[in-house]
């Protein structure tokens, strides 16, 4: 009997996807955390034609509206994954030349990628598509979101040139073969693509792994007029103060519970003083749940619950340059809403429902 119930529910999931019609939706819940504005408990949200129309203690309820009632749930904006490889045709790395500045991720979209549905099921409604590691200049990232129908929607086709200073981009058979060589080439003006990217406002995304690489990234960030994002791991705790001053924000690779207390505390050090931080899953290598797990581990390391939620939503949107469309429950923004049993940074929080573009995408077994 139990198994048939499980199969039936997944059928509902598909049906919701197919008949995604534009309609009105009202969500009432125990607490509504809008992240940008103030939060209401209890609170309600009205979504019309895929856009958030109103958020407040109570909202007007149009007659034909679909209503979701979760008296003790917590409602938050859709999560944003600031760095993964979901939704793209993979295997585009070309090893002959270290510089591949003209490669655009936007041209490689593929909505048949099963990882898109897994991201949606984990509450990730928007993400940045990064080129694979392996080249000094890997190409230009893109920010995209999934529509209710499962198609992919480009929020930003050009989201900055990636410069990977990590070990993986040096190869003895091509120039540069070391971090020193890379720094000398770029500072010597030998890499035109970097100079043009630094000149325009789309910005530069610098990927590092150790404090040495962050030191080099700091010098390169000085040359970029537009924005400079730092993609790093929790091993670069010592460069926290310098990095928060020089970069417009920091994106962390997955922060897992296997880390020592010292490493778990690094996101909190970077977020001190209000600097923007965000998390990434680098899916499909790791599951989509890694995004929320990173936030949970960061809170165990000392990051406050609000700062962690902000890192999953509004801060990530600002870093990706799409904070006008997603990232918080503000009227006019895209109707991406998640309904949890508890605050999402609590390890026991269960994701009851995902609303994407105003359409209920996942139905959970537990009503």
């Amino acid at each position, binding site marked *: 009997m139990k198994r048939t119930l499980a199969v039936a529910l997944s059928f509902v999931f598909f049906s919701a996807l197919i008949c995604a019609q534009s309609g009105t939706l009202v969500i009432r819940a125990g607490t509504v955390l809008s992240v940008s504005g103030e939060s209401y408990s209890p609170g309600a949200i009205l979504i019309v034609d895929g856009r958030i129309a109103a958020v407040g203690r109570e909202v007007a309820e149009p007659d034909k509206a679909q209503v979701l009632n979760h008296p003790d749930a917590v409602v938050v904006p859709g999560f944003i994954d600031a760095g993964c490889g979901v939704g793209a045709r993979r295997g585009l790395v070309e090893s002959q030349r270290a510089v591949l500045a003209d490669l655009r991720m936007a041209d490689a979209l593929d909505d048949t990628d099963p990882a898109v549905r897994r991201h949606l099921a984990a509450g990730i409604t928007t993400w940045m598509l990064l080129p694979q590691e392996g080249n000094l200049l890997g190409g230009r990232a893109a920010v995209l979101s999934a529509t209710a129908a499962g198609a992919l929607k480009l929020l930003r086709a050009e989201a900055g040139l990636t410069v990977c200073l990590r070990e993986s981009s040096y190869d003895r058979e091509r120039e540069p073969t070391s971090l020193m060589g890379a720094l000398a080439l770029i500072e010597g003006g030998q890499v035109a693509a970097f100079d043009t990217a630094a000149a325009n406002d789309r910005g530069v995304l610098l990927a590092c792994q150790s404090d040495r690489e962050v030191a080099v990234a700091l010098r390169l960030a000085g040359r970029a007029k537009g924005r400079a994002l730092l993609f790093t791991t929790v091993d670069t*705790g010592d460069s926290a103060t310098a990095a928060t001053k020089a970069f417009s924000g920091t994106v962390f690779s997955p922060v897992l519970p296997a880390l*020592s*207390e*010292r490493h778990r505390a690094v996101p909190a050090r970077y977020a001190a003083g209000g600097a923007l931080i965000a998390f990434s899953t680098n899916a499909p290598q790791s599951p989509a749940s890694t995004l929320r797990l990173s936030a949970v581990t960061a809170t165990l390391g000392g990051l406050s619950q609000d700062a962690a939620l902000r890192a999953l939503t509004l801060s990530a949107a600002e870093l990706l340059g799409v904070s006008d469309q997603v990232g918080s429950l503000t009227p006019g923004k895209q109707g991406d809403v998640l309904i949890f049993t508890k605050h999402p940074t609590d390890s026991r929080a269960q994701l009851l429902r995902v609303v994407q573009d105003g359409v209920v995408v996942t139905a959970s077994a537990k009503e």
Partner: protein
Amino acid sequence: MNLKLIAVLCVVAAAACGQDVLIRGGKVIPCKGAELAEADVLVRNGRIEAVGKGLTTDGSASVVDARGRVVMPGFVLAHTSEGMDRTNEMVPVTPYISVLDGVDPSRPFFEDCLRDGHLTIALMPGERTIIGGTGVILRPHGLVVEDLLQSDNAGMKLSLIPSAGNRAAHLAKLRAALDDAKQHMERKQAESGATASGNVRFDLEAFQLDRRKRELARMLRGEIPAWIACGTPADVDQALRLVEEYKLKARLVLGGGTWRAFPLLTGKNMPVILDSEFEFRETDPETGEEVIRNLPQLLKKAGVKFAVTTAPSSLGRRYLWYQAASLVRAGLSREEALAAVTCDAADAIGLGARKGSLEVGKDADILVLTDDPLSGRAWVEVGIIGGKVAYERSKDPRLTEIFGAGK
């Protein structure tokens, strides 16, 4: 059998010229007892006859003028695997091999030991083994291996540092070898009891088997000590358990990583031989910072007497006088530092009665240094082994070549 014959021959040759040696007027550091400003040391028949002021001899003694020099007992190198072409056999359990067959007298290691004053060397197999074989105590002066030999069985080398596979597998093999030797001993006892009367048929296969296990059996009977090398605190635990279980006479050769287990050794008066690096560096997992553990201080706090070893390819740590100075740097007193390279080291290798200090009746292994051993400027002027002058710096071919005769 002719090994024994030659050894006897050498002693006879030495005694023949029973000449006395008088070392006069030097500052004597006996390492046991107070230092004497200007004193003499009389040597007869290879042993120290007297230590005191104003000693006189009949005319025939040869006199070594030590005025303005320092006279002290020879340094004792408590554990080393140098001087051989390979430190271990490839097979992990080889109780039947001896270092004696691997010693190569022409190696520069022995010449440097003589020049640096390391007059007693305990040569043992290396650590890459489970049961490595037996070691020997050597002197760094002699024509062939038999000349260098001081005692031909210094003990059996065991290692608990798991080189291949993990620690439990390593221990399982070690216990299997020990149990096998134990059963072999019990069976031989039972057989010898059973055949008290009547003739014994010579059984070659049993003899071969016996020869392979004889040394291990001697170790289990406590006739020869077990030198147990440990790399981590868990190894020290296992070593203490093995000693208790098999009733071994044991000496511990400790690497730096075992510092957490030092308190376990308090009051066990089991000889301890410390690795040549006295600062153990480890990264604190909580803070990521490098922490330096001061091993001599930790051993002193645990009340454990210890000897030290050398690292032949390092700039300073290849000299025992430098190691003694490093112990002072680590916070030990002058006496404790000098003891660690002389009398404590001699006790550690079981020759405490004969070596390690200038006391009447002990072997005459004496050094005449140009300066105080801890000053960092000392050269060995004269090296006396077994009462005979074995080394004179003025005649050292290499130093005269480099520094010229005048130095």
